Structure formats: C-alpha cells, structure tokens
C-alpha cells in the first residue's frame, strides 16, 4: 500500500503569509484576517476534506529593518500586523471536531507554567488535537518586545530553549490522570532563566503533551530538533537533494536515543493548479501580478537579520553578521554557488509548484519517495488556494493513495504517527512521566 502524505494548511493571521503582497489580489479574502469567520469557515472546509491539520505560523515582532527602517514592512503588510494564533485556535477547538490545530509559540513569549496550562487547556478542549510549533525567535524586535535587551545570541538562545521546553514538558508529563492527585504532584524548578514551584493545573489531557513541531536549520537548531521534534519542517531544494536531509535528521534523532522514524518530515509548498499546463501558467501569471520582489527581499533580509537595503545591487551580500533563521537563505546561497547579490535576489522568479493535478501528483509522489512524510500547503489567497487544492488536486492525490479520504480515530499524535496518543518512551519528555501513571 502506498504511504500517504500528511497535509497541513500552513497559514498565518496576517495580511499575506509568505507570498507578499497577495493581499492585493482581489480574489483573496485574507484582508479579513482579524475576523474569526475567515478562520472558522476555512477550518470547516479543510476538515470536510480531511486535512490533517491547520497550522498557524506566528511572529512576535517586526522583521529586521530595510534601508534602516520599517516603513516597507508596515506599508506593505509584510507579516505585520500579525494576530497571535492562540485565541484563534481556542475558538476553532469548539467549531471543529476532527482536524488538528497547530500553532507557533516562541520560547521567549511565555512562562513555562502559564504556557503549559494554556496547552493543557487547549488539548482538553479539542479532545487531543493540538500541535505546538516550538520556535526560538530570531528577530531583534521580538526580543525587545518582551523585556529582553536584544537578540539573544544563537547558542544562548538554544540553552534557553532547552530549559523552557524541558520545563513545559515536565509540567505536562507530570500531570496525573486522577485530578485528586494534583495536589501531591509538586514541581520545583530552579533554572538559569526560570524559577518556580507549581502543581499541574489540570489532569492529563488526551495527548498529555501536544504534538511537537520544530524547524531548525542551524547546527544548534538541528540538535534541538533531533531531541524534541516529532515532526520537523524542511526546506529541501529538490527531491534529489532530500535524501541527504532525511539522513541527517534521522541520524540526529538516533544520536539522541530515538528512532529515525520518530521524526516526521514536512516540506512546504504553494500550488497553482490548472486543468492544463497552459491554464496553470496563466493562473501563475495572474497571481504574479500581485507579487512584489522588493517585499520578498525585505522579508528575506528581515528574517535573517541582514539589511539588504544597505547593499549595492550587484555587491555580493555579506551575511556574516546574520543571527536569524538562516534556513531559506542558505538554500538560496547553495543554489547560487555560495554567493548572491541583491539583484539576483530581486530577480528570483515567483515560485510555486505549478501544473495540472496529474503532474503535481507526480511531483508529490517523487517527494514522498524521497522520504518526505507530509506537506505544508501554503497559500497565495484564502480561501481560493485551498479551494483549488481541495477541488482539483486532492481527488488525484486520494486516487493514488497519497492523501487520506477520511480521518482515522484518535488524537492528532495517533493519527499522524500511527503510534500512541502520548509521547513515546524514547522522547526526552517521557522521562518526566510519573512511573506507572500512564495507562494509555
């Protein structure tokens, strides 16, 4: 039997996610991102199509400056403003029944006690459908919004992340099944960043710890993900280059005492689907009218923390000072022979997987065969991109056994992994579990 691909809708509560400046596209409705109805109707549509999850990205501040200021970010709506997904996910928990609800929350954003309780409450409310995307935050402004003096250097950021994540998992995994035992479960933490004495706020939720997503491209990020990720995002340039990525991630997990198969790999794409190749190209041309190469440049530089606006057009970009999330930029560098200029970045073509349902399914089959377990489906417009995917590509994927037709029973973790509802025994979070208290 064919191994299926898991499907997440990859969205963000902002004017346009990842494809600036598609909010200008009159076919899109994402300008209504402040309204709950945009998200409830999208989630219902995705749930009817048996998408595994709806996944909300997030950001805690402005991306790095462009030409020394933030005018472009604000004027063009470049991931700004952005609403926190947590209240949206809480609302969706009561309007949906089956679909997974995943969201980003940074290790500089919360306090372990507060956030563990938020996760537990959500997992109870949703019947075990919550996923947490652990991010370490790489933006200067994000840090300066939460009383930190500036960007925490890379190594220190991951030390902090270890402490934060371990504390959250410890609280969640210590939660007893019997609420009468809450008072006897005291957790004392004295760490570098946090100190507290607490009890779990709730009995164990269906997943106990929500399903854990991570990205992580830098060496420290790879180690961190190898330790904690149950699903990891990758940005591989091609199916051919994927084998090496898969091998690296799986062997890192093994080095942390886990199985290579304990980590699912999700690759992100946006799709433009036509009934013929010609129609697909025409649709791509239409959407590229709202593409803004300079905005893409602002976003890319802003993400890695290098102001591309300060370079001459044809000067190779010096990224030695980059502190941010390097993943996408390193991919571009590698594809360009190790050096790249601002002009080359601006002239990057508008990029999406473009084709007919058959050719796109062929490509996804190649990605699947290369070791990819799931796809994050990005969007140009909401709901149009997802409507097209569901109406035209999904039936072909289902016909080939590449996508599920209906949900399996159980929690998000059980459905994504085929395993149990809770962290498996090899995961570092499981060591916090009270012996003999995990009946499931």
């Amino acid at each position, binding site marked *: 039997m064919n191994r299926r691909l898991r499907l997440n809708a990859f969205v963000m509560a902002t004017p346009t996610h990842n494809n600036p400046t598609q909010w200008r596209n009159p076919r899109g409705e994402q300008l209504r991102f402040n309204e709950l109805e945009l998200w409830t109707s999208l989630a219902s549509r995705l749930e009817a199509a048996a998408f595994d999850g709806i996944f909300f990205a997030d950001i805690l501040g402005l991306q790095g400056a462009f030409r020394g200021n*933030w005018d472009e970010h604000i004027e063009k709506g470049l991931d700004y403003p952005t609403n926190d997904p947590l209240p*949206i996910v809480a609302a969706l928990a009561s309007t949906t029944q089956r679909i997974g609800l995943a969201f980003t929350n940074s290790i500089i954003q919360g306090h372990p006690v507060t956030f563990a309780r938020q996760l537990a409450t959500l997992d109870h409310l949703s019947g075990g459908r919550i996923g947490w995307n652990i991010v370490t935050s790489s933006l200067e402004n994000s840090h300066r919004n939460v009383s930190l003096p500036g960007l925490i250097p890379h190594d220190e950021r991951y030390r902090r992340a270890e402490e934060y994540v371990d504390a959250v998992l410890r609280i969640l995994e210590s939660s007893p099944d019997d609420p009468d035992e809450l008072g006897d479960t005291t957790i004392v933490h004295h760490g570098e960043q946090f100190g507290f004495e*607490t009890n779990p706020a709730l009995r164990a939720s269906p997943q106990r710890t929500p399903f854990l997503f991570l990205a992580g491209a830098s060496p420290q990020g790879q180690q961190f993900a190898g330790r904690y990720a149950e699903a990891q995002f990758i940005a591989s340039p091609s199916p051919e280059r994927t084998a090496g990525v898969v091998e690296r991630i799986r062997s890192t997990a093994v080095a942390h005492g886990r199985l290579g198969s304990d980590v699912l790999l999700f690759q992100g794409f946006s799709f433009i689907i036509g009934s013929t190749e010609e129609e697909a190209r025409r649709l791509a041309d239409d959407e590229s009218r709202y593409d803004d190469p300079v905005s893409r440049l602002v976003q890319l530089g802003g993400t890695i923390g290098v102001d591309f606006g300060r370079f001459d057009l044809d000067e190779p970009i010096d990224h030695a000072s980059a502190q941010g999330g390097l993943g996408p930029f390193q991919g571009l560098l590698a594809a360009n022979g190790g050096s790249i200029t601002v002009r080359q970045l601006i002239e990057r073509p508008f990029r999406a997987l473009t084709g007919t349902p058959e050719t796109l399914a062929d490509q996804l089959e190649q990605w699947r065969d290369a070791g990819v377990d799931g796809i994050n489906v990005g969007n140009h417009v909401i709901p149009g991109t997802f409507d097209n995917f569901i109406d035209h590509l999904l039936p072909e994927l289902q016909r080939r056994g590449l996508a599920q037709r209906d949900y399996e029973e159980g929690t998000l973790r059980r459905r994504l992994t085929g395993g149990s509802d809770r962290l498996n025994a090899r995961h570092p979070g499981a060591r916090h579990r009270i012996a003999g208290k995990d009946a499931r």
Partner: protein
Amino acid sequence: MSSSDAPGQPASTGRPLGVSITADAPALLGGALAGLARRLDERGVDYLHLDDLSLNGETRRETPDPLIVVSSIVAVTRRIGLISTHTAIQNEPFVQARYLAVLDHLSEGRAGWQYRQPGTERAWTSSTADPDPSAGRAGRDREFLDVVYALWEDSWDDDAVQRDRERGIYADPRKVRFINHLGPHYSVDGPFISEPSPQRSPVLFWRWTTIDHFAAIAPYVEVVVIDGEAQPDQAAEIRHHAESAVNDSGRTTPAQFHAAVRLPDEADPAAVGALLATAEEQRQRLGAVGLQLVAGDAWLGPAAGTAWEVLLDALPVNARRPRILRERLTGAARLGWADWSREQRRLRLGRDTAHPAPAVDDIERN
C-alpha cells in the same frame, strides 16, 4: 464598527448584569459552559466572567486557563461580553496585550479582563520567581498596565490602516509608532503587532482586594466588583477610595461598581425570588449600579435550566444591546481618556527604536 442599534439614544438602559463562573474543570472543558454561555447570550446578559482559581493558591483543584476557555466560546455566542482573568506574573505585557486584542478582534468588541494579584504567597511563586517580593508588586502592576495601554492606545492612529489594494498600501507607516517603554520591570519597543480592535482596550474589571492595590491601577480600572456581603460603611470607604483614586489620576469617566452576589449551591427555581430580593437589596445598600451573579457548578448543568429561566425572567436586561461591551456598559465603544493617560506613560513614541540595543558582541562577552 458601531452596531446598528439606535444612533443618538443611550446605548445602555438597563442595569449591567454579569455572570461570573467558578465551576470545576469538567464543566468548563466539556460542553456545559458553552451551553450556559449561549443561554445567557440569548437572554441579554452583559458579560460572562471566568475567574482564575489558581491565583487563590488552589493546588488541589483543576484550574484551566481562563483566556483559552473564554476564547473557546467566542464562536458560539454573539453579543455577550467575555471576561478572562489575568495577573502580571503570568505573561509579559506585550504578549498579554496581544492575546486580549486578538480576543477583541475575534469577538468583534466583546473582550474584557479582570486584573488581579495572586491571592497567596504560594500563588506568587507558582507562576514565577517574584523578583521583588514585597515592595515592587504594586509598582509592577502599574507599569504592566502602563505598557499594555500604551500598546493598545498609543501605537496605531485610528486612520493608520488603509488596506488600499490599488496602491499597495496596507498601513501608513507615519501613523504606526514604536512605544519605546523602558521601566524598572519591563522594556517594550513595540510597535504593537495587532491593529486597533473595536474597543482598542478591552474593558478592565477589578475585584476588590486592598486599597493599596487599587491605588496602583486605579487610572485604568473601569468596573470595580465589590463583594455583595460587604458592610455599607466598608462599601462607602471603597467607593471613596475608588473615586478619589480616579480623580487623582485626572481621569474624567469614573469607574462603575458592580455588586457580586453568590448564587446558592443548589440551582433551585423556587428559591430564585428570595435570592433576587437579597441581591437587589445588597446592590442598593452598596450603591452599585450593576449586579454580578457568581455561579458555581450547580448552575452549569442542564438541571439548572429552569432556575436560570426564572432568574433571567425576573431581571431587567438592556433592551438595546450593542455588541461592543464598553458601549453596553458605558455608552461609548472606546476609552475617552486615553490622551490623558498617554502623558502619564512617559513614552518616547516614534518611528524608530529609541533605545539602542547592545551589540551582539557585547552580549557574548558578558
């Protein structure tokens, strides 16, 4: 933004009526709360409040996160205000301000919050290491609110958002500002990351505890909840302090008082008449304008349906009910005194960060 209800007429004609829930987790996390919320919503109750029992130092009782629970009922209600409970030690002000602004967006102006301090020493340390155990707490609360209100009220102009598809202008950068707060407990650059919501600042409730705590945050409190069992002279003292604190702060609109009356442990329809007579007597005795009914577990199940119907039949609710919570309570959708409080916040509003960050190299050398 403004609802269609009768322009030019006072928006709020009945007495404010709220319900505060102190039930156990199964009722809050199952369907019972949503069922009650729908009922109260249909019957015109002004707000539903969810307390945070973990702040009472409860370690043996399940205590779900109120913000999450309140957010989970946005989609199943239409007009009722949704009030969660928060304290400074749970989140950074930027994060807290954003959660509540998003709730206000999603609910189309129905968000409120009750601000309180942890009730026991254990509750303080259960959330975080408290860096300044005695002296700094009230000051920290005030600074927390200063930052939150700066983000809500000062960072975006009303006309900043353009959404101009033709010209490709989402927002006018000249009308969005960094707040550049730098204080003893918090440093927050901004600009705020959510655009102005229907109320901008969700309505701030405060449940009476001590004069000192109130004095610290009085400039911002809009609804003071007094225990219905308080003695009249206590209530008069409370009102006096509240009014003078508000006057000292230079605010023009005074806080509104709601008397909290606990519903009995049994939801008995036959007892509702006597209960309401007592509640009304307490409200008048305390000089409060609004009534807040505090409901425990017995009032969440389907068995409580009849008692609620009898209760709600007997209570006058607003005939005109704007969706926006502040408009329902006070007649105005937004704060009228934000300009005054901006001076108090001593911000360095601008289009750039005012406090240079240390170079990364310096951090690494430390």
